[in-house]
């Protein structure tokens, strides 16, 4: 059941330059799954649309959701979010999207891959899969490897950095080849070039890859058809080759989408 609710900010801190880590107390936590997202509304009413932000972690005991997001700078909605303090009210629309099919990882060798601001949703996924042998492959720009300590609790962590300061130099694909890693199933979230490389890799290795996509959104609930991705087959809802990222996704089997 989707709802618009008022959440209360529990804590917020900057965990890397421009990367903010926010815990929100909200009833939405009880029905959230890894790979789903919430729409976060600004208090500035000149900005209308909810900002889609992925769920980084779910705490069912505290009824809380953790959102890790990038502050896009002066004048943006995420800049406003970064100023929120403990006790502040935050309007959320959620829980949105389908989430990662984590049950498909059972008994499999998995890659859990995140790049840049696509790293956060991989955390709850790793926690849910709960496999100490899960291969968590995360890519960053530089040595500000946010969430690294969290990941180390839930699997084997392989890091790639663009500047080579930590782990493999390059991107997550370099980390795979440098460490000669193998898998039966892939889960990934990150920038489009990374997802394209993963789609290609998965096709070559004949393994399923579940990738989480991003697009500009308006309604977030599947009504406006603003956020679509081209699909290989005519999909059940649109009857054209366009699936709704907010509702049919954001997670798709890589082989089913044209990116």
């Amino acid at each position: 059941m989707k709802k618009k609710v008022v959440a209360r900010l529990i804590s917020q801190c900057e965990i890397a330059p421009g990367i903010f880590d926010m815990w929100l107390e909200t009833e939405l936590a009880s029905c959230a799954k890894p790979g789903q997202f919430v729409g976060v509304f600004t208090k500035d009413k000149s900005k209308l649309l909810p900002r889609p932000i992925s769920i980084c972690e779910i705490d069912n005991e505290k009824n809380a959701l953790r959102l890790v997001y990038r502050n896009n700078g002066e004048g943006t909605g995420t800049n406003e979010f970064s100023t929120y303090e403990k006790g502040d009210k935050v309007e959320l629309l959620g829980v949105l999207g389908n989430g990662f099919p984590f049950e498909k990882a059972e008994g499999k060798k998995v890659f859990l891959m995140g790049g840049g601001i696509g790293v956060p949703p991989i955390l709850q996924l790793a926690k849910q899969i709960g496999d100490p042998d899960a291969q968590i492959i995360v890519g960053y720009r530089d040595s500000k490897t946010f969430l690294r300590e969290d990941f180390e609790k839930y699997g084997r962590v392989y890091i790639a950095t663009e500047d080579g300061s930590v782990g493999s130099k390059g991107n997550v694909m370099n980390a795979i080849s440098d460490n000669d890693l193998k898998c039966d199933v892939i889960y990934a979230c990150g920038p489009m070039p990374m997802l394209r490389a993963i789609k290609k890799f998965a096709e070559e290795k004949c393994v399923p890859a579940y990738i989480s996509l991003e697009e500009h959104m308006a309604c977030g609930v599947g009504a406006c058809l603003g956020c679509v991705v081209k699909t290989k087959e005519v999909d059940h809802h649109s009857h054209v080759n366009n699936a709704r990222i907010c509702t049919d996704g954001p997670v798709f089997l890589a082989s089913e989408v044209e990116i």
Partner: protein
Amino acid sequence: MNMTTTLAGVTFKNPVMTASGTFGSGMEYSEFVDLNKLGAVVTKGVSNVPWPGNPTPRVTEVYGGMLNAIGLQNPGVDVFMERDLKFLQDFDTKVIVNVCGKTVKDYVEVVEKLSDRDDVSMLEINVSCPNVKEGAIAFGQKAVALCNITSEIKKHAKQPVIMKLSPNVTDITEMARAAEAAGSDALSLINTITGMKIDINRRKFALANKTGGMSGPAIKPIAVRMVYQVHNAVKIPIIGMGGIANAEDAIEFMMAGASAVSVGAMNFVDPYVTEKIVTGIEDFMAKNNIENITDIIGCVE
């Protein structure tokens, strides 16, 4: 207290409707809103065959509003009748179907397929979408073209016809008069206003389509002015829309001359907004001793 309003012989339980394209066919928003509480659901534009729509990005935010260039993606009238209209049959609300096309023949084909559906109360003809290359707005920016398509649709339509007007014209009253003269039973206004946004860091258009239709609270004063002008220019009833965010906005449109109102972009901001507007209008009527909501139509002095 009487909330009912009548357009072209069709009576609605209240004047609050959904603006085409922002509400699908109500399926998605039925999780938030009791559709039975609405005056009508106005469905997303439907064409004779499935339309894929435009490339992404299709939406972007602007100050106090948004731009969209969806390009009327829809599954075509056959799927629409089987799935969407069937879904809406379970609700006690009127259904207005928005019809789009590239040629007059396309529109007529949809209108004819819907003609024996008694679960469709009215047809809203989209001659004002700014985001498709052929059809739509091409019929809505020249009085002669608007006149022709209106009279052609009137020949085939069994339900009363609402022509939806574009604000992207020099004089909207000229278009309103043309539609009325050609037999339109009612008018909807305004559709979105053509706009543009540029990402200065990437030197690229924010939308793949370059231009998009602007909606949201920032366009409301333009829409209110146009409803007022058209109300004074024609005798047929008006469904007013453009940035309605609350009951006060809805009442403003009615005082300007609208017999009913549609809520669009604000559904994205508050998925409960349509129901809240119905309640808000009731409160306003009670507080101001208004017996019939129709008493306020065009009452501004």
